[in-house]
């Protein structure tokens, strides 16, 4: 199978993720879209690793997954804390830094 197809899929996933981050207001959905973009990046790394026949890309993908897991822990904790205090998970409501 042509490995370039994986790259197209990765590009598609990244675009969907990026549009989701910009368009959606719900913090959980935005968070999921970010995960989508990270995984798109992972997919590219693995694909290029396969194309070039090296292992660095696959190793980096593991690192990304670990970082993403940590990020999920912290990010979800923040979202829940905001939800508790403001009764809203809308990302536009949390624009307090402006003032």
């Amino acid at each position: 199978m042509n490995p370039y197809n994986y790259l197209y899929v990765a590009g598609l996933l990244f675009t969907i993720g990026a549009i989701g981050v910009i368009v959606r207001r719900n913090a959980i959905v935005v968070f999921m879209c970010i995960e989508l973009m990270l995984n798109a990046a992972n997919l590219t790394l693995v694909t290029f690793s396969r194309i070039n026949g090296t292992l660095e890309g696959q190793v980096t993908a593991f690192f990304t997954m670990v970082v993403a897991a940590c990020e999920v822990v912290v990010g979800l904790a923040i979202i829940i804390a905001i939800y508790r205090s403001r009764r809203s998970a809308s990302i536009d409501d949390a624009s307090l830094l402006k003032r």
Partner: protein
Amino acid sequence: MVTSSSLVYLIALPLFGAITLLLAGRRADKWGHLLGTAMSASSFGVGLYQLSQMLSRPTEERAIGQKLFTWIDVASFQVDAGLLLDQLSICFVLLITGVGTLIHIYSISYMSHDENRRRFFAYLNLFIAAMLLLVLGDSYLTLYVGWEGVGLASYLLIGFWNQKPAYATASKKAFVMNRIGDMGLSFAIMIAFATLGTVSFAGVKEASEGASETALTAIGIMLLVAAAGKSAQFPLQAWLGDAMAGPTPVSALIHAATMVTAGVYLIVRSNFIFDAAPTAQLIVVIVGAITLLFGAVIGTAKDDIKKALAASTMSQIGYMVLCAGLGPAGYAFAIMHLLTHGFFKAGMFLGAGSVMHGMNDSVDMRRYGGLRKFMPITFITFGLGYLAIIGVPPFAGFYSKDLIIETAFNAGGFKGILLGSITLLGAVITAFYMTRVMILTFTSPKRWEEDQHPHESPFLMWFPMVILSIGSVTSGLLFYRGDALKNWLNPVFGDHGKDHYEEHLFEPIVVSAMALTAVAIGVGIAIMKYQLSEIDAVAPQNVSIFTRIARKDLLQDSFNESVFMRPGQVLTRLLVKGDENVVDGAVRGIGRTALGAGATLRRTQSGFARSYAALILIGAVALIAGIWVVTL
């Protein structure tokens, strides 16, 4: 040179008086005038002692000096603060302290109703100290300190009654015009140091022998600018008339007898420079000649008795400057006229003060008249001064002015005839306006108001006038007899001071006859015009254009205003506008740009995380697109 440690007391005594009186404030109100007078008198005493010491020494050892302290010690720039008392300075010391003491005595009575009399005496003492430093300094730099000191004292005393805005303006005008002259003196000192490497009189004298004529001419012209500023000579003469705003004793001491003659002292003291710079010397003569006629013409048109006398002072100093510009032949005669003028003009100013005292401080001569009967002592003393200034033998002015006219005629060739004629013409006009003053004030019918009660002044006021009038009678003959003053001053002017004019254009007796004829003409015209005809109590307005111009001081103020003051004001306004618009504009513009940029950029910080994300995305895409385009 012989050194002496007692010279400093000449200056220290009046300086002590000034400082004490200024520091003591109102506590000194009761005895301030006595201390001031005592300090001046004791300085005069020291001066007399120095004269007696000087007379006891042989001619070549008469000049003595005193080094006070090392003033400036920077590489090749070495200046000691030192004093020099020679035959020339002693004349000035005795004139300043002698006339000064008499005027202190006069002021005790004249200023007795002024609540600030103590401050007046403090300033007078300050003036005496500064003027003595001026004539005793042994270098141009020391002289400069005294020069500035007398300028300050003059400013303070002209504006003594500064509660009147006009008087405050007059003092400011005098100060500003003097600054122009002071600038000339500082330039002269700088040029002297740059080209000759020294600023002491002895050093400059030595170095001037091998110096280039250009440098000496530059120094000479700058010294002349200084002299013109201080001595109210053309073209810096306009301040003297307004300086009459000061109390009359000040006019007598500073603006007649001493300070205004400092310019003549400077020129005579710098004789070695002017002797080697004929161009500068010629300009000195021209300035003197112009001023002598200028002042005399103004004098004919003034109805204010003090301003008439001020114009006369200007004119008489013109005589001295002209004579000093004639070189070695003239120096001694310039000083002689300076000394006799010091007596008779100070005496006449004190007389004018006495008249004002009796006439409720009115200065308008058209409102005087017939005062001879009411003020006999003032009339006699003023009259003796009058006879001296117009040059009637055997009064002082006859000898000194006659010698100047003679020296002018002997200047040689066309120049001599021209200068001689100018001095003779000056003598005619002097005789005319002084006779006019006499007639308007003393001998014509009375024109004063009914509520004025003219009376003779108290003893303390007429006593100095009597002493000064004795001086104006005798001093001329005293200095003239056997060339006494000339021989006395000769060592100061070096060897070339002796018999310089070989050729006589006219015999001295002929010159005297011409001078006396000139005086007779002037007096005659004045008597015809004022004694034998009615005098208006108010100055007539339907007069010729010449009279009008003369009344306006020959347009000196209009000239200065239109040529210097108004363009100066325009320039200042332009500079202020330039400062506000360009300099301030640039500074404010930078601030405004920063503020505006901040305000615009602030809008991007909306606080919406999604817009930040979008911006990051756009930025990343743009970056990648850029790299892609570049590497393609």
